[in-house]
């Protein structure tokens, strides 16, 4: 269709239909826009927030009845609806754009290209005004590019469609350049989600004036194109994703899509619900996919159910993109064995674990290698065993001033040291705080005697369970739980003491819980926590603090 066929002036009804078409185009692309969302936080809701804001505009109670309003009245009504229903920051900014648009059209019975061009200018100005600290490379830049392009044209004789075409081209151009303005976008390999929303809206609006259906190609990052994602971004996203990404289709009859959407939104985040009265597509992020699925079955038959654990997705994403340690100022390398123990160390901020312990002493070269891989200016080693302290000291010598040792003699000491680590302190202060902290905890071990002997006045028979408190044998018993009880009794814990039991690979959860209950009943005011340490050789590692 040539430009000549589109109207030279828009009535109030035309304007309304144009905004509705822009909204539809945004809706069709809401999912893709959500997927682009990495700024300011990657919570994947930009598309849905803009869409809900525009829906509120189209449903505004302040709109004049169909067939009756001027462009000024319609744009005012739309803007009021957008303002009152604005959601999220992208929605608030877009509502200010709508408001600026209506200010620019305030004197228009109907509107021509020149009026529309001027209104894009007031719209862009309004959106900047809404934001405390405008950030370029966002939807603001895209709106402004659209406004400036139309301002620069000979608008007096242009039709609304011609103006929108110029605006859309400029907006698209600005959108493609957002990664150069906002580094996080470049790192993620995406354009700005809000800016893409603006482009979708303009494209839909123009498509309406041209009488054409619009199909946008939005490049959502697929894993193949994401290998350039930076570590900063990967680290930034780490804490933002949890729960389950739940998607399915409801096949039914006379489904009210809006009701489904409202109900899904009430129970989940990042919600997209689109479709018609027979087929509804649901996408939601939720802690528990069950209730959302049950809700779906209330409306029809479920199909194409796809539930993904986002934590796992994220881990896979990290692996796929060759995540390796980013250069950092300070890193901690700990020696540990057992899945649970290792997780405790990494959860608390250790950059790397060297497998080892009593029966597999890590070598100086292994420790040095791990320290180098941690890629930090300064690395602290936590040997967590008296037999590894020497090797750690040797690694420190080989590290020529970049490696220090906090001489932890046990896993509990190592954990106490790690807890004292504060990323906001400098390395020397941290090392000092960690050295002090390892003295603040008593360590116990329950293991199996490998030979018959007398140790520290305790007669030990091969195969018995023996208990060590701070490295000294204090009891030998026929079962590990009796040895544990004797160990705790010897420590004479005061009230308010916290005892952490790291149960070994061969100790069941129920068994450890029973022992914990026994300790609590024998020692008033003592708190016991059981952690699945999964360590070999030791039935229990015990920290008393």
């Amino acid at each position, binding site marked *: 269709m040539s430009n000549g066929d589109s109207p030279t002036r828009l009535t109030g009804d035309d304007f309304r239909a144009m905004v509705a078409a822009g909204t539809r185009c945004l809706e069709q692309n809401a999912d893709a826009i959500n997927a682009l969302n990495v700024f300011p*936080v990657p*919570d994947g809701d930009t598309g849905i927030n803009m869409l809900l804001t525009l829906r509120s505009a189209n449903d505004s109670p302040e709109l004049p009845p169909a067939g009756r309003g001027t462009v000024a009245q319609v744009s005012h009504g739309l803007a009021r609806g957008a*303002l*009152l*229903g*604005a*959601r*999220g*920051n992208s929605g*608030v*900014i877009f*509502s*200010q754009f709508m*408001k600026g648009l209506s200010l620019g059209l305030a004197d228009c019975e109907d509107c021509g290209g020149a009026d529309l061009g001027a209104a894009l200018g007031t719209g862009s100005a*309004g959106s900047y*005004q*809404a*934001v*405390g600290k405008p950030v370029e490379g966002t939807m603001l830049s895209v709106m402004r590019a659209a406004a400036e392009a139309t301002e620069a044209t000979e608008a007096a004789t242009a039709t609304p469609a011609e103006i929108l075409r110029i605006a859309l081209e400029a907006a698209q151009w600005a959108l493609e350049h957002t990664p150069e303005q906002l580094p996080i976008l470049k790192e993620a390999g995406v354009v700005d989600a809000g800016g893409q929303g603006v482009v979708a809206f303009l494209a839909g609006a123009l498509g309406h004036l041209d009488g054409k259906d619009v199909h946008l190609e939005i490049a959502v990052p697929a894993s193949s194109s994401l290998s350039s994602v930076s570590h900063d971004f990967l*680290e*930034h996203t*780490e*804490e*933002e994703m*949890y729960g389950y990404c739940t998607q399915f289709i409801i096949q039914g009859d006379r489904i009210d899509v809006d009701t489904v959407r*409202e*109900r899904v939104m*009430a*129970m989940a*985040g990042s919600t997209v619900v689109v479709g018609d009265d027979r087929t509804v597509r649901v996408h939601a992020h939720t*802690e528990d996919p069950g209730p959302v699925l049950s809700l779906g079955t209330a409306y029809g038959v479920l199909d194409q159910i796809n539930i993904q654990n986002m934590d796992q997705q994220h881990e896979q994403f990290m692996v796929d993109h060759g995540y390796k340690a980013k250069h950092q100022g300070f890193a901690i390398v700990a020696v540990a064995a057992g899945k*649970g123990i290792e*997780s*405790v160390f990494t*959860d*608390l*901020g250790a950059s790397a674990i060297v497998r080892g312990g009593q029966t597999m002493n890590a070598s100086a070269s292994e420790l040095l290698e791990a320290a180098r891989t941690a890629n930090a200016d300064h690395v602290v080693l936590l040997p967590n065993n008296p037999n590894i302290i020497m090797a750690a000291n040797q690694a420190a010598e080989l590290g020529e001033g970049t490696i220090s040792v906090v001489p932890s003699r046990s896993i509990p000491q190592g*954990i106490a040291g790690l*807890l*004292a680590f*504060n*990323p*906001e302190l400098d390395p020397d202060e941290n090392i000092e705080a960690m050295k002090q902290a390892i003295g603040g905890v008593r360590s116990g071990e329950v293991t199996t005697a490998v030979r018959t002997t007398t140790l520290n006045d305790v007669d030990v028979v091969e195969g018995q369970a023996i208990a060590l408190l701070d490295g000294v044998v204090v009891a030998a018993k026929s079962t590990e739980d009796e040895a544990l009880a004797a160990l705790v009794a010897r420590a004479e814990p005061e009230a*308010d003491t*916290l005892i*952490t039991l790291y149960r070994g690979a061969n100790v069941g959860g129920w068994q450890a819980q029973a022992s914990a209950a026994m300790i609590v009943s024998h020692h008033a005011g003592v*708190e016991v*926590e059981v*952690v*699945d340490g999964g360590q070999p050789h030791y039935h229990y590692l015990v920290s008393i*603090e």
Partner: protein
Amino acid sequence: MAVKVVTDSTSDLPKDLAEELGVTVVPLTVYFGEEAYKDGVEMSSSDFFKRLTSGNVIPRTTQPTVGDFEAAYRPLAEQGHEILSVHISDKLSGTMNSARAGALEVPDAKIEIVDTRTASLAQALVVKAAAEAANGGASLAEAAATAREASERTDLYFLLDTLEYLQKGGRIGRAAALIGGLLAIKPVLTVMDGEVHPQEKLRTRAKALARLREIATSGGPYAEIAFIHEAQGDDERDFAEHLRTNMDAPMISGSIGPVIGTYTGPGVIGFAGLRKA
């Protein structure tokens, strides 16, 4: 004509104090599943925590809408007042954006908007200072300057029973996320530069409380302090008593409201201080 102060419900400003100061509190909204409640208006703090701990629904919150702020500003403006609107850190909530847009909707009114760069009772201390200045006859510019300057002097420290809620709500940075995990940790946190930072990681609540007491008494000197709590048990009573006897500053007490409570979870104890100028 006078200067009137408006804040939002994340200030946890006690109701009677708000009335006494003539401060308008615009509520945020907390959602339990499909049910929406206006923070502190349609749901009290105690009802909220009962609901939070008895069910397995994780509540969500939303900032006030532009319309909410417009509705708060317009009647004040129509009575001929100028308005000072004092809010939660814009790094923790979008409330500032709604307030800014709401102010644009009442173009004839004179409205100043201030980001306190903090939250909860620390925000309340800033609101109180600003309202006292305004009630004492300060101009809008003077009251706004008081609020901005007081925002620079706030301290806020609190201990959580669990980091679960803060993490789920996305209001904590990466460093702090590390301190959750297999081990139960009692973290002491602070708000710095408008964001939540971990201060200390301790293994028991008793040790965390002792550390919080130390931080309070070694800080300052304070012109005014606030005791922040959720429950009303022995720990709370002892901590309030410690603040009252060891800190030479007037104290207000406030309970954590539903919206802040969504991120702290139950059992939170803390203190806010306004350092002497």
